[in-house]
């Protein structure tokens, strides 16, 4: 005896086939997403395994009395941290990334606000222009910066900037700022313009409404934009190589260090510097997750 159909359309829905379809759907989602997650985790685990196995062999080579601490010091990470060139590169990376993130935020807040709140002629074109650094190959950005500094008025500053430390910041800023602008635009898009309108009706000038009402609401977004710009700057390499060069103890940042160490076949050192960058990037990611997005 067949079960009565819950509706009277005469075309009953097959519950078993829906169950099967749902299961296939979720399993497919899981496999596809899981494969990518495995790739990411696999890379990090491989790096860590490489580091620990090389540190362990260094420890084995060390005197038995000296113990694991000597192994750590003689291991790739210990040698990297002891190297004055790498230490310089760590400090230069921290300082230039922070500077370029601050500059990016300084530009991204007004640019994001303008793009989010105002309609003006050429807005779509400006929107597309702001995306150029995201879509352009990084090497091309470096080369374009180099060419730009061949012509006045920037050519007068070329001696102080090109292949000097300011070039590092400028190259990082050129790319990182585009990401910060996107983040700030999305942040302002999510803030109800009504609050601002109410503030204006209460007697605020535009600046007062922005400062008292909009900016406090954009705090989390600003934090996200800052950390994103910082992380992006840390990973920047192509534009730096062309526009700032890769001179040791001068314009060498962590990504350049990896490149230079690889160039001389020092893979241990390259992986050690990479691990320092992984830790820095992880810290930034955690900070973004904690502060950037509401739970």
């Amino acid at each position, binding site marked *: 005896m067949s079960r009565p159909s819950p509706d009277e359309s005469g075309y009953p829905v097959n519950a078993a086939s829906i169950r099967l379809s749902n299961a296939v759907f979720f399993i497919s989602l899981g496999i596809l997403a899981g494969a990518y997650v495995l790739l990411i985790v696999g890379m990090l685990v491989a790096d860590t395994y490489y580091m620990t196995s090389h540190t362990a062999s260094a420890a084995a080579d060390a005197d038995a009395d000296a113990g694991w601490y000597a192994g750590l010091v003689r291991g790739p990470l210990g040698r990297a941290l002891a190297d004055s060139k790498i230490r310089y590169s760590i400090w230069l990376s921290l300082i230039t990334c922070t500077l370029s993130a601050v500059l990016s935020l300084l530009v991204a807040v007004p640019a994001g606000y303008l793009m989010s709140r105002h309609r003006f002629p050429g807005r779509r074109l400006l929107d597309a222009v702001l995306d150029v650094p995201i879509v352009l190959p990084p090497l091309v950005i470096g080369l374009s910066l180099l060419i730009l500094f061949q012509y006045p008025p920037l050519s007068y500053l070329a001696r102080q900037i090109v292949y000097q430390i300011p070039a590092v910041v400028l190259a990082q800023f050129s790319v990182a700022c585009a990401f910060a602008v996107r983040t700030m635009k999305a942040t302002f898009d999510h803030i*109800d313009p*009504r*609050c601002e*309108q*109410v*503030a*204006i*009706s*209460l*007697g*605020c*000038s535009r600046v*007062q409404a922005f400062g*008292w*009402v909009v900016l*406090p*609401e954009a*705090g989390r977004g600003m934090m996200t934009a800052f950390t994103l710009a910082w992380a992006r700057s840390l990973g920047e390499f192509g534009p730096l190589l062309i526009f700032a060069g890769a001179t040791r103890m001068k314009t060498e940042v962590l990504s350049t260090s990896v490149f230079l160490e690889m160039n001389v076949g020092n893979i241990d050192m390259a992986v050690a510097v990479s691990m320092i960058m992984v830790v820095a990037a992880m810290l930034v990611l955690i900070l973004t997750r904690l502060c950037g997005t509401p739970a």
Partner: protein
Amino acid sequence: MISIENVCIHAGKFRLENICLSIPSGQFGVLMGRTGCGKTTILESIIGLRRIQSGRIRLFDQDVTDMNPAARGVGYVPQDGALFSGMTVRDHLAFALMIRRAGSRQIQQRVDELADLLGISHLLKRTPAGLSGGERQRVALGRALSFRPRVLCLDEPLSALDAETRSQMCELLKSVSRKTHVTTLHVTHNPEEAELLGECRLQFADGKIECLTKA
């Protein structure tokens, strides 16, 4: 009084032509109309948030058509309250006076007076996050009244409230209107609200505003 004369507003394909409206001084005016007919657009043009193509807007015989919204002296309560999430209720009530650089004693006095009037004294230290719908609208109303505006514009402030809170808010609006004599334009699609509150009831249909109450 609030007076709109032959106002035309164009917003993309949406057009309002030759709109006329008048609410006598000190009265509670209610503008009714279907959703999407342009009530809020008219309200925004009075506040100064929307440009008008032609016509004049007068508040108490002063032509405010080209005046900056900040200088018009119009209190505004939007539909969802639009409270400032980072500020306490006290900050909301003090905001307009702080912008006007009033003394801290005057601000304190006004905040207490408003909190008393609206029954929100116990909420002064709270932020909007934990407030109920009715409480949010009371705070929004207090914020709009804080600088003693000549005109108050309410954009469907009761539409998101439950029946009981709505009737309480209606009573509150009536008593505020009686005590402050502020000339009010209340926009709603709810005829009951209009019947209960409106000393001057206006119906907006087919692009024309018709007065339902006798002068």
